[in-house]
């Protein structure tokens, strides 16, 4: 570890949030944001492996051009399950509901979130939604893709559309309540002296994310209600029989679901800002630019949904405007990447496991972002849309970006959450395996897409087999990479060395309270007297 841990009294003698009370009820009825974060951690890890199992079956099936494993109908259900579970039940709640829940009150110097009971309610809503989604899977599955496009999902549906859509609807309310809680907490519960521009960038990212959650999710909710009503009544506003327009469903759906991409990636950017500053031992470069670029992404994210519909027949002029606005998203994204690399410049960098994830994030997110520009160009999009190029692009953002950041964050704050250290060697090894496995899985898909292999097909021409086998091989490496942390993190809870309050020598209020923190977070509410990331400068950079 980079710095010597402050010696604490032996673990167990001190009362903290984990040993303050025992028994299943003390967890199921807790209003402690830290315990709720752990409830979420358990639930979303479970859902992650469900979604991962579906992905494994997809990649196994695609080893053979004629399909090695399942019937085409089953294949449709597999990729739908993978998408629905990973997006609504893993990526959207991942960083906000686990790390955000745990860290937002600690980072702003509060005893809890503003509405602790609503916080618990949001976990219950999530759980009910997850169970409903799993019920839909075992009772026949759903084959519309995670996008629920009408009329697949209305007039011509013959699978569990209503149950799955209702699950997404309920999960949406869970997400709204989390966002609402964060906004109020960040506005009203900051410790004395903690001004907006002293906040950690993770808080800025969570704030921007919360704004998207409260503005976007309700639109998805009403769209799902309208869809469910149409399925039940066999008539509705997307029904072409009475003049309804199925394309309107796509507009309403993407009005939420494009911003939802930023619900998934913005928190990851917040995590990476924390990691880069800590492991480069430097004040973050361009603090306010990074903070405002999060808000800029949140705003721009609402103006670009039409780029999912370049070939669905929207007007050419709408396409032009959506294309220009989509290009503009590259500006705040690039601002972040440049500021992170500028922070690294002349930093005293060390390569602990969280930092490996952060560096992996920067590289993979940049590739994902740049390939997004290909898709924002009208002409190239016509060629690339609906192919594996899209699949590769968003997996570079979502898996290479969001999941990498999530794992980096989990590794960074694990000593704070559990009070224990994990074996650093294994952690670095896993980070490396994940990076290699990820690239082997998804890089060939860029090529496949460019060559014209369409997404969502159960079979493909024989000439694409080599690249598909590469991708499947990468997926198995990636799968192993995800299992290793599961094992050593669980091991560390019992057997890991005691971490002490600040094993990384990091800055921030969360590192000033013991690990694990007491139930009310701080003995006394701290008074903040300096900026975030006040690391001692290794040398005078202005000299």
């Amino acid at each position, binding site marked *: 570890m980079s710095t010597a841990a402050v010696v604490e009294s032996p673990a167990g003698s001190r009362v903290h949030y984990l040993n303050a009370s025992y028994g299943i009820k003390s967890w199921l009825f807790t209003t402690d944001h830290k315990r709720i974060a752990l409830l979420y951690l358990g639930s979303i890890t479970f859902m992650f492996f469900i979604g991962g199992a579906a992905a494994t079956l997809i990649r196994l099936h695609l080893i053979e051009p004629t399909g090695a494993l399942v019937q085409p109908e089953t294949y449709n259900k597999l990729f739908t399950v993978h998408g629905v579970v990973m997006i609504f039940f893993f990526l959207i709640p991942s960083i906000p509901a686990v790390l955000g829940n745990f860290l937002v009150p600690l980072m702003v110097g509060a005893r809890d979130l503003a509405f602790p009971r609503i916080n618990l309610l949001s976990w219950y809503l999530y759980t009910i939604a997850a169970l409903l989604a799993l019920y839909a899977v075992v009772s026949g599955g759903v084959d519309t893709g995670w996008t629920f496009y009408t009329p697949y999902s209305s007039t011509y549906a013959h699978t569990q559309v209503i149950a799955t859509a209702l699950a997404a609807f309920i999960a949406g309310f869970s997400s709204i309540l989390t966002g609402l809680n964060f*906004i109020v907490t960040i506005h009203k519960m900051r*410790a004395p002296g903690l001004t907006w521009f002293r906040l950690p960038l993770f808080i800025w990212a969570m704030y921007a994310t919360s704004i998207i959650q409260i503005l976007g999710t309700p639109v998805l909710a009403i769209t799902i209600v309208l869809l469910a009503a149409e399925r039940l009544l066999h008539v509705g506003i997307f029904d072409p029989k009475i*003049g309804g327009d199925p394309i309107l469903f796509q507009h309403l759906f993407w009005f939420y679901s494009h911003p939802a991409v930023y619900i998934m990636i913005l928190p990851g950017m917040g995590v990476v800002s924390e990691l880069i500053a800590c492991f480069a031992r430097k004040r973050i470069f361009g603090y306010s630019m990074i903070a405002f670029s999060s808000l800029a992404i949140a705003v721009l994210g609402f103006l670009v949904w039409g780029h999912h519909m370049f070939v669905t027949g929207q007007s050419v002029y709408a396409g032009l405007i959506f294309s220009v606005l989509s290009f503009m998203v590259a500006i705040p994204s690039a601002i972040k990447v440049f500021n992170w690399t500028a922070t690294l410049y002349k930093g005293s960098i060390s390569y602990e496991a969280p930092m490996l994830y952060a560096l992996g994030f920067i590289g993979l997110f940049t590739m994902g972002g740049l390939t997004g520009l290909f898709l924002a160009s009208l002409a190239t999009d016509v060629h690339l849309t609906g192919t594996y190029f899209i699949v590769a692009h968003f997996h570079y953002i979502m898996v290479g970006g969001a999941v990498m950041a999530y794992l980096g964050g989990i590794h960074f704050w694990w000593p704070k959450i559990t009070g224990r250290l994990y074996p650093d060697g294994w952690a670095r090894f896993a980070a490396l395996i994940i990076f290699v496995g990820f690239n082997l899985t998804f890089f060939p898909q860029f090529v496949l897409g460019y060559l014209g292999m369409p997404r969502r097909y159960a079979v493909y021409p024989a000439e694409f087999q080599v690249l598909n086998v590469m991708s499947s091989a990468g997926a198995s490496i990636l799968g192993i990479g995800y299992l290793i942390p599961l094992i050593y993190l669980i091991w560390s809870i019992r057997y890991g060395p005691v971490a002490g309050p600040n094993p990384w020598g990091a800055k921030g209020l969360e590192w000033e309270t013991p690990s694990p923190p007491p139930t009310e977070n701080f003995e006394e509410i701290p008074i903040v007297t300096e900026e975030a990331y006040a690391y001692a400068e290794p040398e005078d950079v202005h000299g």
Partner: protein
Amino acid sequence: MAELSAGSAHAAVHPPGLRHHFEDMEQQHEAGNLGMWVFLVTEILFFGGLFAAYAIYRSLYLPGFEAGSRLLDVKLGATNTAVLIGSSLTMALAVHAAQTGKRKALIFFLLLTMVLGAVFLGIKFDEYATKWHHGLVPGLKWAPDEEMYKNAPLGSVELFFCFYFFMTGLHALHMIIGFGIMTVMTLEAWGGKFSAEYYAPVEVSGLYWHFVDIVWIFLFPLLYLIGGRY
């Protein structure tokens, strides 16, 4: 990075109604208010999706929407508008009574608000029954008289009624939830929970009630009035 603060509000006398994680009543009050405002923003977008869809289809199928609008009973709609605006007044008076610590007045105005809400829902139910009787319910009972919609295309009249039922139904659902909230507030006021120092739940419930009213203020002209009737 930080020093420990000296005195903490926690050590001071704990006022009734103050939850443990807030420093003082003011912080709790502000947090509660902001929470409800943020929630109302989500509500605006929840209804917003429907309003956007309504606007698009109205511009596409004007004759059908006008014909559909003429089939609604504008007198009942207008009565309901008056009833709801009245209930907003009684709600505002209830909040004022809570702020000034007048328990009896608070209970009286809360009950009056609920009575007006019930009148609204009763009239709405009567309207729905009439639509059912005339076969104007898409999906469940759609068999309108040809006399009723004249020359307008039947499909877009049905589309109009899809919107009518979704929008007013969603609004009525919010009224029913508001009715439930007011019941809880009345019971708590009866139990003497509120005082001039602690009235935030009443104030926040009032915000919700006014919001539901405002939605109706938009629904009434969009559905009942701008049908080319006058």
